């Protein structure tokens, strides 16, 4: 966090769009030198992407295999003109337009790379993760998450995962610091990995239900909270302040709640067991 007296000085020398962020104590000079990779540009990815772009991240690498469809409109950012376009490219364009204008010095511009790819067994993934400072997973399936998790752990990159439950009212943020906090494979043992079709929520075991991925149902309310919490953990890691929490769970069901969990790594985890 910036000391109070340094904030005014930095705000005066930065574009106006960053002044409030600097007054909050975030050092945008540091952020401008960082690259974040966002896997999945759906309901969560667009939130994390927009927050990071507006907060001053230097570069975003965006990956999503899908195109924009009308059923995505319950979440934010995409509109009718975007239908049929690849989500990653579309998001990159929108985020660049927030920052990259003629009046703003180019060193404050946002750089992006966008890929319409399926990350499972994708050969370029390792290189992209290698050149990122932090990995953010916002996918709607486990295979993609586990894929990024494996490379993030092997290349020692922090990873922030977000997901919401099948009924769209609960969500989880997992912060992976390789070798320190549990990685995604530590949580998804063989017994808990496989999603069972949408049975009654009350008969679901907490452990499996909380780790389920969004599929049919999704709500902007839950997604925005989860996406914001992911972005918060990203900023804390990149700017080295505040507490990192291995697992945060929220619920917007009848009883509103936010709880934190400090679980330990699973011995013999295939991804991080050797660290």
């Amino acid at each position, binding site marked *: 966090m910036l000391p109070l007296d340094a904030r005014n000085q930095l705000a005066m020398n930065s574009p106006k769009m960053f002044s409030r962020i600097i007054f909050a104590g975030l050092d945008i000079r540091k952020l401008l030198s960082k690259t974040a990779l966002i896997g999945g540009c759906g309901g969560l990815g667009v939130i994390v992407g927009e927050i990071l772009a507006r907060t001053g991240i230097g570069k975003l690498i965006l990956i999503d295999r899908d195109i924009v469809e009308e059923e995505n409109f319950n979440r934010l950012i995409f509109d009718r003109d975007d239908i049929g376009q690849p989500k990653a490219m579309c998001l990159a364009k929108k985020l660049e337009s927030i920052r990259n204008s003629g009046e703003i010095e180019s060193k404050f511009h946002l750089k992006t790379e966008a890929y319409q790819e399926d990350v499972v*067994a994708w050969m370029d993934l390792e290189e992209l993760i290698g050149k990122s400072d932090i990995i953010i997973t916002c996918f709607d399936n486990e*295979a993609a998450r586990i894929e990024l998790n494996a490379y993030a752990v092997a290349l020692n990159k922090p990873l922030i995962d977000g997901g919401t439950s099948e009924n769209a009212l609960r969500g989880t943020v997992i912060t992976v610091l390789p070798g320190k906090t549990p990685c995604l494979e530590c949580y998804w043992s063989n017994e808990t990995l496989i999603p069972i*079709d949408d049975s009654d929520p009350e008969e679901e075991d907490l452990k499996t239900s909380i780790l389920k991925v969004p599929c049919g149902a999704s709500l902007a309310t839950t997604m925005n909270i989860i996406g914001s919490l992911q972005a918060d953990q990203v900023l804390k890691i990149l700017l080295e302040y505040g507490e990192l929490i291995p697992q945060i769970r929220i619920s917007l069901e009848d009883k509103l709640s936010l709880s934190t969990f400090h679980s330990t790594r699973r011995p013999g985890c295939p991804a991080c067991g050797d660290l």
Partner: protein
Amino acid sequence: MDDLFNIKFVRGKIVGHWDWTFEIPLFRTVARVGKPGWKERLEEELEKIEYLKRLKKEDNLFSKVEQDPKNPRIFYVEGVSDNNEKIRFNLRLPIRYPFVPPYAEEYYFGQYSFYSYSDHGRVACLDKINNRWNKEGRHGIAHFLAMLGYYTALARHNVNIRSLTRKTRKRRKIRK
């Protein structure tokens, strides 16, 4: 197991396409791609794919399975569906394979999308395959293709895969 019997019964009556999954022996070697033991595993994969082809040629949808020469985790699959449409897709092996099933990229049959959990409110057969998959890694590509062919045939004859699942879940509960 009882749900599989149930499906066979339905399929035997309506579809006439057999589920070959149980006739392919389980794998002896369990190894992740690129990890120790993968070479032996790959040999066994090819051997079992051949085994599946020999089982019942006229019913097997997938006649060609080839590994990408550059990427060991992608296979090209080709075949002909039971209504003589050409089938072509990439089969991708997730990093946790064989503890989780492979998946068929961009594979659509009837109104079902294979890889999407929910397609206009319908659950794809991916869920069904996930539930049946051997969690110790003893199922492989051949088992996957057998299941995929079977569900493709079911979907083509408008059997709602999800309704089968629902029925068996309820039955199981009563028994407890």
